[in-house]
């Protein structure tokens, strides 16, 4: 069983000062599948991804990637693991000092040492794969709309053909049509590359489109996990409330009357 886990998280805890964000969290990401983690804003979804990527150091717990422990690993081992990863950041995080094509080609040129000319060809191809023409390559990120930036960021995340891709709220802040375009692109990229995917979102539509497996995070823990098809009849109070967007339920919003 444990052999076909791409990522295995056990007892992960992370606090900022006195604010506990992740509290003894367990999570399994099966190899070659697309896991979608849902949860409200500020529940620590981004912190979870950043811990797995090694961008934040957890206070406690274990993170295994391909069976290798990553917490406390040397920076060489970490860099090794990073080579297999692609990441789509919540805010796109494009390098604003570089034109679009260099953004997409960045992992190839700097991470893999590829020649600029060869990397540019691949970048243009990847831009095509996310529906952007080669002329976009010469623009700078600031000249693009939010939806285009997301697509460039997606192209950058898949340019090195990673084994595992992380998506942090890929559709947040986009209109429904652009959301659907991004969802389809993600499904297509994951299927074409045969990659494992971990997506974090509060967009239920996204979950249904791109998820094989689903999990829900609440108060720093995974409160439910199962096949993505089961979210509508999970029998779990948290998931039900989230799926139907009810204000009443086990998830309490600390709101006082006006």
């Amino acid at each position: 069983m444990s052999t076909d886990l791409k990522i295995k998280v056990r007892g992960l805890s992370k606090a900022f000062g006195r604010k506990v964000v992740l509290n003894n969290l367990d999570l399994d990401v099966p190899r070659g599948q697309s896991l979608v983690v849902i949860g409200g804003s500020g529940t620590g979804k981004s912190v979870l991804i950043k811990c797995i990527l090694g961008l934040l150091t957890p206070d406690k717990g274990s993170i295994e990637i391909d069976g290798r422990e990553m917490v406390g690993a040397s920076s060489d081992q970490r860099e090794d693991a990073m080579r297999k990863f692609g990441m789509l950041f919540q805010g796109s995080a494009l390098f604003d000092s570089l034109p679009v094509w260099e953004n997409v080609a960045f992992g190839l040129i700097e991470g893999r040492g590829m020649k600029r000319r060869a990397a540019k060809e691949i970048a243009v191809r990847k831009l095509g794969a996310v529906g952007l023409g080669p002329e976009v390559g010469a623009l700078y990120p600031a000249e693009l709309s939010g939806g285009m930036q997301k697509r460039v960021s997606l192209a950058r995340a898949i340019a090195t053909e990673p084994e595992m891709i992380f998506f942090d709220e890929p559709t947040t802040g986009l209109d429904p049509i652009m959301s659907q375009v991004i969802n389809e692109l993600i499904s297509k990229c994951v299927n074409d590359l045969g990659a494992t995917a971990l997506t974090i979102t509060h967009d239920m539509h996204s979950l249904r489109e791109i998820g094989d497996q689903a999990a829900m995070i609440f108060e720093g823990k995974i409160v439910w996990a199962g096949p993505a098809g089961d979210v509508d009849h999970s029998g779990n109070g948290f998931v039900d409330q989230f799926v139907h967007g009810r204000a009443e339920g086990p998830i309490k919003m600390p709101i006082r009357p006006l």
Partner: protein
Amino acid sequence: MISFLQTIGRTFLSGLEAIGRVTLFTLKSVLLAIQPPYYPRLILKQMIEIGFYSLPVVGMTAIFTGMVLALQTYTGFSRFSAESAIPNVVVISLTRELGPVLAGLMVAGRVGAAMAAELGTMRVTEQIDALTTLSTNPFKYLVAPRLIAGLIMLPVLVLIADIIGVAGGYLVSVVKLGFNHATYLKNTVDFVQALDVISGLVKAGVFGFIVALMGCYHGYHSHGGAQGVGKATTNAVVTASILILIFNYVVTELFFAR
């Protein structure tokens, strides 16, 4: 009384902590800067940014400083009929002290602030995290080129400032104070020693490193959105300026104390 002592103690400890953090940052930067991969393209870009684009402001500072030095020395020294010492005073003050210190402070305001703002924005928009996920070490890619460029370019700037400053003093002395232009130049050249110029250039190298280091340190560690970036920028300029004045004393002590 107790709480007063507590405050003092806490301030002292957090001061020590900050020194420790800066020291660690410096060691890490230098250690990583001397390991491949190197980024000659980025070093060149920073050299142009720091050296070439600072020329106007440093040149203006130098010429007016040289002019005012000549004028002030004249009003002071003419009381003792010691006007002939003007070329000596101008060239010594400029090469040893005013050239490096004023250029350092001007560059701290111009370049240190820009570095802190750029890295700070990259930090809060997750571009620094994105670098890591693309298998690129931010210390090697962002910090090292700036440190190297600062170390190299500030001495170049100061050498130019020395020449421009002496020209300013010459201009005032010859045109306004009626010095013989050949005598003035001869006195300048006869009097200035290699050690005067060299000590100034060593100072400049130290100051250039300090400016880049503070810009990178505060930018790299900025947090809390636009406000945080603003704070990082201010801190970079203030700490760099203070450190320049402190290290000016230290280097002077090393060169000239006997």
